[in-house]
């Protein structure tokens, strides 16, 4: 049942992501690439790249697209539902109770404990992306693109959408 699988994949990866959608990215990859094999690592990285070039929350862009790709409009709706509904419903229903915990040291500890795990997951993903690029485009192109995009994003503070568009144009011309 693809619908149930879609629901489970996005429910699990988002309900475990503390710190907003970006924290869920590696967990989503784990589900859709490693577990269900809906996308290859390469397809996933393309999707993430295009997702980063567009505005809006990242977790929902990925859920909406993967759901659509696997099972059409209904699949997209189910993946989005699984991503959004659990946390929104909990928030609306439990707001009063959660209010008591908003400054609780245990909640902060939870976030603090999970962050290193997310850091490792993101770091491993970054490594995978670099290795893929090394395999596809060779060491020099990879080094050039890494250095150039790092400089533009972090030092010159160019908007990420422009950097991605720039990379797309560069690739169409020089890596074709």
């Amino acid at each position, binding site marked *: 049942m693809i619908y149930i699988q879609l629901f489970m994949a996005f429910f699990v990866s988002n309900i*475990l992501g503390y710190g*907003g959608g970006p924290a869920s990215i590696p967990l989503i990859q784990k589900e859709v690439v490693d577990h269900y094999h809906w996308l290859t690592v390469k397809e996933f*990285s393309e999707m993430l790249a295009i997702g980063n070039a567009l505005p809006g929350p990242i977790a929902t862009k990925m859920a909406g697209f993967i759901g659509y790709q696997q099972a059409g409009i209904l699949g997209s709706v189910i993946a989005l539902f699984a991503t959004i509904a659990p946390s929104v419903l909990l928030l609306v229903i439990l707001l009063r109770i959660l209010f008591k915990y908003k400054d609780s040291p245990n909640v902060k500890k939870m976030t*603090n404990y999970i962050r290193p795990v997310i850091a490792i*997951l993101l770091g491993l993903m970054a490594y995978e992306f670099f290795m893929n*690029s090394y395999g596809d485009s060779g060491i020099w192109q990879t080094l050039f693109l890494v250095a150039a995009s790092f400089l533009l994003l972090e030092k010159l503070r160019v908007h*990420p959408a422009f950097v991605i568009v720039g990379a797309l144009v560069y690739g169409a011309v020089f890596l074709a």
Partner: protein
Amino acid sequence: MRQLDIFIAFFRSGMLGYGGGPSAIPLVKKEVVDTYKWMDDDEFGDLLAIANTLPGPIATKLAGYIGYRVGGILGLGTALFAAVIPTVFLMVLLLTTLTQFKDQPWVMGMTKAVVPVVGVMLAVMTWDFFKKSTSGLGWTSAIILLIISLGLMEFAHIHPAVIIIVLMAAAWIPLKRKGKKGESAEHKQKRESV
């Protein structure tokens, strides 16, 4: 025209926010507190803190709750629709178009070039999470946790979900030691989260 206001507020903050939901928080605040005055500063701050006690995407938690408070169940639907659907639609449109031309050499070149760039973005996010880990836990505990979780995931092949659930539970185990160190880390965090 309450529903329309809700739609515009979350459409605007969704379409103008880059880098995922967390980076759109100031935009949501601008709409909700400054433009439409549905909440004051303190209330928004409280809501953000409460929303952060729960997992899941932050942008949709905020949209869902604020939409619900301003316009009931229909408002909840409107806010979520405005925050999510336009960008999902763009995503599907762009990716399906690209897939149609995926055998063209120029499209293959585009894909190749974009992979290392996203790698850089992920590396920056990694560094971000790493820094937040050390400011929340202190260097020693953060590094120990990093090494343990790397070992468990990469070498023992334990699913990250298991590790996260265990850590979430561990956070509720009472510790007797209460020092000033924890407090200062808390303050730091509060500043970061606004």
